């Protein structure tokens, strides 16, 4: 971690958001589009998005305890947050991701 990063702590290094999908279903595609839009519009630079296709690696569903699709997981900062659904409500997504009143 560099000094610059330390100073930037309030915004922080981009945290990882993992979006679990199962193939190219309409709900998964909608969720990804919504997430990308929200991050770009309201949370620039705070998150990087990783998309995991469970159809290709189903053991990850077991490992990470995924039941519903699509599921968005934010592991840090704690507590872990899981948001399921196509993220069609921007307000609620923002509330969920800004738990610490940032």
């Amino acid at each position, binding site marked *: 971690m560099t000094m610059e990063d330390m100073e930037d702590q309030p915004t922080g290094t981009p945290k990882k958001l993992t979006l679990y999908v199962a193939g190219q279903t309409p*709900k998964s595609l909608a969720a990804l589009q919504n997430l990308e839009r929200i991050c770009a519009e309201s949370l620039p630079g705070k998150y990087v998005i990783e998309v995991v296709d469970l159809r290709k690696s*189903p053991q990850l569903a*077991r490992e990470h305890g995924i*039941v*519903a699709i699509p*599921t968005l997981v934010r592991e840090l900062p704690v507590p872990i947050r899981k*948001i399921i659904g196509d*993220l069609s409500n921007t307000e609620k997504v923002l509330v969920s991701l800004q738990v610490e009143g940032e």
Partner: protein
Amino acid sequence: MADIAGIKKSLTGIAGFDDLTLGGLPTGRPTLVCGTAGCGKTLFASTFLLNGARDYDEPGVFVTFEERPVDIVNNVASLGFDVQSLIDADKLYIEHIVVDPSELEEIGDYDLEGLFLRLELAIDQVGAKRIVLDTIESLFSAFTNPAILRAEIRRLFDWLKDKGLTTIITGERGDGSLTRQGLEEYVSDCVILLDHRVHNQISTRRLRIVKYRGTAHGTNEIPFLIDEDGFSVLPVSTLGLNHKVSNDRISSGVPDLDAMLSGGGFHRATSILISGVAGSGKSSLSAAFCNAACMAGEKALYFSFEESVDQTVRNMRSIGTDLAEWIEAGRMHYIAVRPTFYSLEMHLAIMLREINKFDPSLVVLDPISAFVGSGDPLEVQSMLLRMVDFLKSRGTTAVFTHLMHSQEGVTETDAGLSSLMDAWILLLNREVGGEFNRELYLLKARGTAHSNQVREFVMSDNGIQLVAPYIGDGRALTGSQRQAEEARLRKAELERRADVIRRADRLKQKRRRTLAQIEALQAELDADEAELNFDAEAERVYLDQAASDRSDMEKSRRVAE
């Protein structure tokens, strides 16, 4: 209607259940097992799954939504399943689906594809033929959108059906419906209801097949139990009235009693009821039956609901029967258990199991009246009916004792059992003349001519004897009255004998006297005869003399001429 002949079934390996359903659960279809908390749903499901994996070469997946896999492993380990080795051998996979609602936010539309993927992974991993979902209703507390859940659960069941998996879905009993979330509407093939009821502080488990498409099934509630041997169902339907009868006789252990039956003893494989009031000798007589069976080289099983084994052994020793010897030799098995310890079904189940294990030729239940307090009479009767049928079908002789509270109306037992019994020995304890005497009466003995006499039942260190009572003046006498009567008879007999001797003496004397008279008369007769002979001789001599005188005279006269 489904094709009855065409329905395929998968054995559950649950004792009794496969008989009841004629082969187990429908193969490749979902079965709903529902019931209240703690009624054995999970155990039923896991037994089905583990038996499949272990005995029927059908690997399985256990999907648990509540308990942790380690808990499930431990729960069934006590029933003798080595789950870990099945898991290691890739015959079983436990998938733990846990959803924590507190860390979950629902925003927009979703489905449960993740669940499907995880199940598919687990199914493919072991090549599963069976799957258990325990209990999928937990999802309803994790997700707030019931419309999505219902659609997904319906899709899941269809998906499992398409994959040909024999499935058990467990569900908690809801108000007015079989399950809280109405799962029964998604499962149309087979629904099994488990129940757990407490009556008089004794709990009883029951199972009912609510629905089984394509199979004729009884709708009765059938008791089941969970014990160290696992889950077992005890259907009545496997018992019928087609016992083989035997002409073989068994001894009661009381020679006098055997002698009361023509042919000597009771028929083998019959049920014998010994009823009587307290202290009339029921247990002693049943122990005599056991003793006789052991002596004949057979095995006897004694269920006591009142006395402990040591107590019975000591008591029987006092009448000259040593049961301890047989118990040590393994010929006799004594099981003492309080009637209130289990429910009736449990008692029955345990007794059936012990009988199957020990394989005796004689079984004693002492006393059956002890059950009357622990269930309603109908249940007691149905339990005993099953016991009787079971023992008859095995060719086992059964001895039941029944405690009567009163001797009035003795021909009716509390449990209405008399008609089930082939032989009925009635023991009475009657007060006559300031003392109680035991009496025995053979009230009935099907298929055997028997004495109709009431015998006095005497227990001493020489064992049990039946004394024929004194019968006179239109009534039978027992006890000291009998003895007094017998003494009186003996005295009368003595007097009679003395009388006879006296009369004989008198006659002898009279005869002697007569003979003396005869002698005197004979002497007189002889004297008369002697006189008569003398007279006749004198006459002859005279006549001879006269004749000779005359000839002499004639001679001399001729000479003189």
